[in-house]
C-alpha cells in the first residue's frame, strides 16, 4: 500500500488538478455572489412583510419560513432539477440551484432579520417618525442598522452556511469546487483532489469561522 502522504497529499496530482479546482472555485464564488444577495433580499422582504399587523399576512410567512427550516435543501434542489422536467419545464442546473437556494435562504435570512428588527425597541421607530422621517427612511436609517448590529453573529453564521451549502450544487452536476474535485479524483483514482478541495474550503472559510467565534463571544460578554 502506498504511503499516507502519497495517497492523500500527492503533490503531483494536486498540482495537476489545481487549475481545474480553481475553475470550480470560480464557479463556487460566482454562486455565492448570486445566492447571498438574493437570499438577503428575499429575507428582508420576509422580515418587512412580517411587520404587518394582519395575521393573514403573518401566518403564511411563518409557514413559509418553518417549511424551509424543515425541508432539506438537497431535496428541493433535486425536485427542481429532476422533477420539473417531467412537467416539461427544463430549467438546467444553474437555474435550479439559484431558485432552490433563493427559496431556502430567504427563509433563513428572513428569520434572522425578523428577530433583529424585533430586537430594536419600538421607541426608536417612534422617535424617528416623530422627527418627520418617512416609514421607509425610518426603517432604513434607524431601525435596520440597529437590527443588523444586534443579530450580526447570526447573519455572518447564516452566510457561512450559505457558502457551504453551495457544495450541494455538485449533486446536480454544476461544476463548482466539490464537483471539480470529484471529477479529478475519478480521473486520477487518487483522493488528493478532494483533500485539496477541503483545504481550499478551509482557507476560504476559516477566517470567517474565527470572526464568527469572536462575534458570538462578544455578544455573550456584553450581556
Amino acid at each position: 500500500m502506498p504511503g499516507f502522504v502519497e495517497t492523500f497529499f500527492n503533490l503531483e496530482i494536486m498540482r495537476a488538478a489545481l487549475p481545474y479546482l480553481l475553475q470550480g472555485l470560480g464557479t463556487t464564488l460566482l454562486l455565492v455572489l448570486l445566492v447571498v444577495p438574493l437570499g438577503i433580499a428575499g429575507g428582508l422582504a420576509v422580515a418587512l412583510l412580517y411587520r404587518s399587523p394582519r395575521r393573514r399576512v403573518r401566518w403564511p410567512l411563518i409557514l413559509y419560513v418553518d417549511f424551509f427550516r424543515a425541508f432539506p435543501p438537497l431535496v428541493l434542489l433535486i425536485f427542481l432539477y429532476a422533477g420539473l422536467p417531467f412537467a416539461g419545464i427544463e430549467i438546467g442546473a444553474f437555474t435550479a440551484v439559484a431558485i432552490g437556494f433563493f427559496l431556502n435562504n430567504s427563509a433563513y435570512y428572513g428569520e434572522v432579520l425578523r428577530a433583529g428588527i424585533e430586537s430594536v425597541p419600538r421607541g426608536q421607530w417612534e422617535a424617528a417618525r416623530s422627527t418627520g422621517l418617512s416609514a421607509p427612511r425610518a426603517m432604513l436609517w434607524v431601525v435596520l442598522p440597529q437590527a443588523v448590529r444586534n443579530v450580526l453573529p447570526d447573519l455572518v453564521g447564516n452566510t457561512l452556511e450559505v457558502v457551504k451549502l453551495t457544495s450541494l450544487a455538485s449533486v446536480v452536476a454544476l461544476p463548482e469546487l466539490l464537483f471539480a474535485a470529484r471529477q479529478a479524483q475519478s480521473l486520477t483514482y487518487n483522493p488528493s483532489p478532494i483533500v485539496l478541495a477541503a483545504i481550499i474550503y478551509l482557507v476560504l472559510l476559516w477566517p470567517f469561522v474565527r470572526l464568527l467565534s469572536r462575534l458570538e463571544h462578544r455578544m455573550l460578554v456584553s450581556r
Partner: protein
Amino acid sequence: MNAWDRFAATFLDTDVMARYLPDIAAGFATTVWLALLVVLAGLALGLALALLRSLRFRPLSALIVLHVDLFRALPPLVVIVLLYFAMPNAGWSPSGFVATWLALTLVLSAFAEEIFWGGILSVPKGQWEAARSTGLGFLATLTWVVLPQAIRVTIPPLTNRTIAITKGTALGSVVAVSEILASAQTAVSFSFNPSPLTLGAAAYVVLFFPVVLFGRWVETRFAWKR
C-alpha cells in the same frame, strides 16, 4: 385537461405512489434511524468537549477549538465525500451510512460544543465562586449550578442547529444510503414519474415539520429575562 389536472397527473400519480410507498417507507425508517444516531452522538460529543474545555487546560482547549473550527468551516457534503471516497485509500471503507453518520456527528458536535461552551461562559463568574465558597467541588458546581443555567440559553440555538444538521441526512443519497431521497430517486427512475419524489418530499415534511414547531415552542418557553 386543465393545468392542475396535468400537474396532478404528473406529480401526484396515486398509482405510482402506492406502488413505491413501501420503498419510501423503508427509506423513511433509515432516515429516522440515521437522524437519531446523529443527534445522540453529536450532542453527547459536543457536551463532552464543552465540559473538557471548562477544565481550561490550554493544550486540550486548543485541540477542541481546532476540531470545532475545522467542522464549522467544512461543508458537511465535503466531509461525507472525504470519508466515503477517500478513506478507502487508507484501507478503511465505511459504508455510506457510516460515512454520513460520522460526518454529520462530527459537524453537529462542533456546533454543539460551541453552543454549550457559550452557555457555560454566559453563567457569571460569581456563580462559580458562590458555589465553591460553600465547599462544592468543580464537578458538583458544574452539575448543579452552572449547567442548569447554561442549558436555558443553550436550548433554542441548539434545537435550531440540530434540525439544520439532521436535515443533512438527505446528503446520504450521494453516497448510496437508501434513505428517503435516494429511495425516491430510484423509484423515479424506475417509474419514469416524479410522484415518488413528491412522496419523499412529503415524508421529510412529516418528519421535520413537527420538530421545527417544537423548536419554536422551545424558543418562546426558554426566552429568559434576567
